Every structure is written in C-alpha cells, then in structure tokens.
C-alpha cells in the first residue's frame, strides 16, 4: 500500500479486529496472506524466529494458566504480521506528509518530523549495533552483562550525538518550529480495496458472523 493514510486506517482496523475477537485475528491473517508480499514483508528470519518463539512461549504459558493460548497466539500473530506489513511498506517522508495533512503546518509538521527522525534512527540502529558489537568484541573477552552495558552505552551516545548534529543542521537552516510543506501521497491500485477490506474485517470482528445471519433471518 502506497498511501500512508489508507495504510494507517488498515493497520488500526486490523489491529482492533485482532484485539476484539479471534475471528478478527484470523481474518486479519487472511488479509495479510492475500495482500502482502509474504517473505518480503517480514523482518529478518532471525527476528521472525525470535518473535515466533516468544509468542509461542507466551501462548503456552497462557494455556497452562487456564487462559485461551490459541486465541492469544492468533491475536498477537495477526498484530505482528500487520505491523510488519505496515513497516515494510513505509516510505521516507510519508509521516511528515501525514502529520501536515492531519494536523497542519505547525504541530503537524513538528510531529511528522519527529516521527520521521525517530524511524530513521530505528533503521540505522541495527547497523550501528552490529558495528559497535564488532568494535567492542575486538577488545577481548568480557562477561556478557558487561558487554551489553558497553554496547548499549555506545549505541546511546552514538544516537545522542547524531541527534545533536541533526538538531544543529535544522537550527542552521532556520527551523524553530513548524514549516511550509505541501504533503503528497502516492496511491496504489489496491490501496482502497485493501483499506476497505480491513474495515470490513473490523466490522465482522465486532459483529460476529453468526449474529449477521441471525439479523438476516
């Protein structure tokens, strides 16, 4: 989905549907199967395995404690699939477009810019982390806890310094709050049907299918 507005509507609808009922969660998974690029829309295999194991363990724990583990698995699984879809379809600058479109050139611009910078930081954090781990490992063996503290500290400072530099650049360019910006949105062929499908799934989750049949009778 190219249009961030419709993607956000779809994301909110499907997340809510998965939260409301197991049917909604299963339909959200079906929506993902139909509209996603499957493997391409998922994070790295390592991350998928890590998240998968965490969710399965939590589902088992829920079942053992008397809860509905399968329902939990379906709901969290659906939320993760939809979230990874929304994230993988993200394009640079779209949150700024969205912020200005929704809230205007003052607060919308500021919030959109903040969101853009935050997501860019998340994207480079993985690369930074790998570089810092390599740099720290070169210094020789140390306890795992100590290494994690060192890596975490270096990552934090690297990002603080980068933020400071970005802030300086923005200030030098005259930014003090808000900005003139004309949001633009791309629109894919399947954007509207996909968003409409997501809204339908939410409605089906709220009103269970059997209730619809009862109403029809």
């Amino acid at each position, binding site marked *: 989905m190219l249009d961030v507005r419709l993607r956000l509507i779809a994301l909110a609808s499907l997340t809510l549907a998965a939260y409301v009922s197991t049917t909604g969660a299963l339909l959200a998974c079906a929506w993902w199967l139909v509209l996603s690029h499957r493997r391409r829309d998922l994070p790295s295999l390592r991350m998928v395995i890590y998240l998968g194991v965490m969710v399965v363990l939590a589902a088992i724990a829920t079942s053992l404690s008397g809860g509905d583990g399968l329902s939990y698995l379906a709901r969290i699984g659906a939320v993760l699939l939809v979230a990874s879809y929304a994230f993988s379809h993200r394009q640079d600058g779209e949150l700024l477009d969205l912020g200005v479109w929704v809230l205007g050139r003052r607060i919308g611009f500021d919030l959109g810019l903040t969101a853009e910078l935050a997501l860019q930081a998340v994207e480079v954090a993985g690369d930074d982390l790998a570089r810092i781990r390599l740099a*720290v490992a070169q210094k020789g063996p140390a306890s795992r806890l100590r290494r994690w503290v060192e890596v975490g500290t270096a990552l934090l400072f690297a990002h603080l*310094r980068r933020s400071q530099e970005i802030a300086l650049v923005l200030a030098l360019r005259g930014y003090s709050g808000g900005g003139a910006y004309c949001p633009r949105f791309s629109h894919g062929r399947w954007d509207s049907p996909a968003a409409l499908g997501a809204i339908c799934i939410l409605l089906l989750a709220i009103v269970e299918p059997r209730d619809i049949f009862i109403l029809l009778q």
Partner: protein
Amino acid sequence: MKVVLDRVRVRRGTFELCADACLDEGLHLVSGRVGSGKSTFALLLGGGLVPDAGRIDLFGVARRLLVQQFAEFHITGRTVVDEAVSWGLQPHGVLARVGLEGRGEADPFRLSRGEQKRLVIECALASASDLLMLDEPFASCDLREKHRIGRALTDRPGLTVVMTHDTRYLPAPDWSWTIEGGTLRSASKSGES
C-alpha cells in the same frame, strides 16, 4: 601472513560487493568514491559481515583489528584512562602521544569527534595485531594528526589495509585496490601500473 577472499559476495540492501583477491603482508590502500563500498569491505574483512557467497581465509592472522570511521563505536571506558586500559595498554604513553595529558579522567564520550578519533586510532596502532584495518582514518583529524598516522603506518609490520579516498597523508602503499561498481578491482603493486 595473508588474507584470501575467494569469490566473496555480500549484499546489503540493494548494494552488492564482490571481492576475489589475495592480500599479502604489507600496506594495502583501498580507494573508491564515497558510497562505493569501502566501509562494507572493511566490515567484511573485520568479521562484522558474513559473506553471502564465497569465503574469507586468514592465514597467520591471530588478531585482527578494525578501526571504524566513527570512533564513538569503539568507546567503552568511563574515562579516557579507562578507554586506553580497555585496549590492554598503559594509558600514560597513549595519552601523551595524542595530546590528551591532563584529561585522563575526562569522559571519552565528551571528547570532540577528532579527539575520540585520535585516541582510538592510537590505541589500535599501539595494540598488537596481525591484520589492522583503518576505515577512513583521516576523517575528523587535523593536519598534524593525519601526518602522525601516516608516519605510524610506515614500516608497520603485518598486514595493514587502509580504506580511504584521501591518499595525501598515506605512505606509498605496497598494493593499491579500488572499488568500482561494487567490485574490488585488483590494482597494482607499488611502482607498477
């Protein structure tokens, strides 16, 4: 001592780097335009990236050190003295060589980027390593420091690989390489062309 890259391929996003080379003992210069893949090559040699295809064999290399372009990635000490000690070094000599005497108790994260770079490069140069890789060592350094690094690399034993597009301060390399179009191209031994 040598490093053999046997039909190595590594992909990062849409960029792919290919390398098929043998690096012998001596000073190697790897040049290329900004964004050509020098840092990717440095990470590959340093063990920070696993090849998607091919293999890298290290012969006679017991310890390898990669100094990355951004020195803050290397810092783990709470003070400048701690930082030098974390590399297994006596701090006083290191601090004197990089002009940080009297600032031993300073927080290394509060040093300027140039000071951090000086400190980290000096620590790497003073540490024993068979394979030393320097990614853009002259970035953020003043003229004096650039000349100092250049002098330190002259006659350094072992295998040294310097990734830079700024060759003015580098001693004459034994081998030159360039990365063009995502491929490490064999260049010439010094004096040949």
